């Protein structure tokens, strides 16, 4: 079965919308679930929860630092507490609070950053979070999740809610292709191999997973067998899946909508170095900020398409030979 036949990549919902729907389901099942937002509830989709459970929704105004600490107070009093904002705001403006009120005392707060990466589009670099996976991962004891589509987001938000420890979940603004069928099971910390490859393996996260599948389809027509692994949990990372891919294909390309010098790629490289050293290339954002444009225009200009990832793959394969 060809890659194209295996993956239809039909457009699904935005991961932020799946997050909002998961919150409502969680809220219905458990009255201990509470949500804080900082004047972006219509954008983060926490407004769905706010409408159903106004008494358990805490509007914090445009004050992310305060919101994170309030969320920590709720979580340390036994609530299943979520705080949400744009990823760029909750992590950058709330970082100190995430460090001292959440990570250091290991308070099981769930932090959701939406509108991540450059695919937010028109709003431009001040709202584009291209360092969030790095910031979140640097918080000791945090689990960091970056789902690829709405199915993964819905399932992983629900799993994260009762996860014993602080969790950051990265979500996006735009509708993204469906990578998973409705029955797919997800386990925090366990990567999912979407395609087995013989010649090389794409390791990716978030909306770039679908682009890696597209790249694999392009390469397949060139007679190259490329695997695709979805690292939906950035931290703790699935070392076994990475080591196996490095060992079996000897060539890894990491693709991410994030700075490549501090994101998924360096984490994968650490595992590869420690297990089965092999050729690696890193596809993503260099250490610069993007610009406004439609999400599609921005993604094309900053080389976040399957065709771009395939170019990087050919470069890696040339080095392998």
């Amino acid at each position, binding site marked *: 079965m060809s890659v194209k036949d295996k993956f239809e990549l039909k457009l699904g919902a935005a991961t932020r919308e799946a997050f909002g729907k998961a919150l409502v389901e969680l809220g219905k099942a458990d009255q201990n679930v*509470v949500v804080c937002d900082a004047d972006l509830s219509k954008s983060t989709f926490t407004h769905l929860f706010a409408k159903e459970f106004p008494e358990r929704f805490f509007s914090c105004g445009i004050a992310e630092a305060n919101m994170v600490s309030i969320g920590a*107070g*709720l979580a340390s009093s036994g609530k299943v507490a979520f705080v949400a904002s744009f990823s760029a705001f909750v992590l950058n403006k709330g970082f*100190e609070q995430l460090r001292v009120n959440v990570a250091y005392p290991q308070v099981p707060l769930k932090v959701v950053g939406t509108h991540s990466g450059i695919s937010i589009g028109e709003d431009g670099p001040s709202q584009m979070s291209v360092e969030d996976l790095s910031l979140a991962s640097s918080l000791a004891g945090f689990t960091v999740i970056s789902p690829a589509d709405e199915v993964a987001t819905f399932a992983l938000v629900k799993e994260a809610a009762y996860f014993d420890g602080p969790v950051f979940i990265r979500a996006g603004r735009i509708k993204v292709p469906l990578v998973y069928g409705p029955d797919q099971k997800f386990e925090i910390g366990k990567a999912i191999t979407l395609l087995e490859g013989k010649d090389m393996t794409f390791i990716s996260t978030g909306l770039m997973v679908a682009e890696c599948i597209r790249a694999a389809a392009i390469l397949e027509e060139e007679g190259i067998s490329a695997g695709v692994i979805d690292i939906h949990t950035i931290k703790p990372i699935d070392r076994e899946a990475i080591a196996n891919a490095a060992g079996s294909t000897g060539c890894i390309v990491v693709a991410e909508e994030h700075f490549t010098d501090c994101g998924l790629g360096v984490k994968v490289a650490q595992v590869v170095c420690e297990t089965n050293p092999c050729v690696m290339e890193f596809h993503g954002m260099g250490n610069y900020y993007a610009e406004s444009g439609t999400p599609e225009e921005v993604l094309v200009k900053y080389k976040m398409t399957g065709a771009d990832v395939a170019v990087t793959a050919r470069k890696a394969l040339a080095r392998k030979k």
Partner: protein
Amino acid sequence: MTKTSDIGELQAIAKRVRRHIVTMIAAAKSGHPGGSLSAVETLVTLYFDVMRHDPANPTWAERDRFILSKGHAAPVLYGVFAEAGYTPADSLNTLRSIGSIYQGHPDKRFIPALEASTGSLGVGLSLGLGMAEAARLDKSPTRVYVLLGDGEIQEGQIWEAAMYGAFHKVDNIVAIVDYNKIQLDGFVKDIMELEPLADKWRASGWNVIEADGHDFAALQKAFADAAAFKGKPSVLIAHTIKGKGVSFMENNPKFHGVAPTKDELEKALQEIGA
């Protein structure tokens, strides 16, 4: 631990806590005596009279919460914890030593009965609001007390929290400003003036109470007034003296963060009395 409203008994406890403070900081050869000594009566009033808590059952869900947002005043909290029976008194002098439960700033990992790990200024009031909101949702009688330094409220997050507390009418929280008028670099008025302080809190929508922070009767009345006030959060501006109880530390910016020498400790203990 026996609770008491008797001012003579509270004064005796305060004296022991002051002795603990200067002794442990001298032993550690570093720490913050000034802002610990200024907050003694506030903490003693809360832990031995006002707050509903039980050292034998520190996870009691309906307990009142105390957050030492000015975490550098850890010695006063440790002295009170030892007197209340939460932690051992005989190891107070291990303050700031490797492996000690008495860390440089309060650390929940070492003392689980602490409500918060603190030390970075400006975040404690928001944390307390979250705890107060959880208590309201649970219809719990829990009240939350957050001790802020005066210099600390130069942090912007305090005023984010002030807005939140007033807007959401969080009336089961009391912020206490330990207004000793000195911060690390000198007098507050010379670093970043806070006045008109009461007006700022009032304008932010808080019920403002001012009291002499070394007068037990005044503190008892202030906390009773705060508890009786509904519809707004309360802030107690506790007028205090930095280094209170040790003449050469009083109103002396030097003793914000410097330990007494051996000779100074002896003199301090003499002044505090047995």
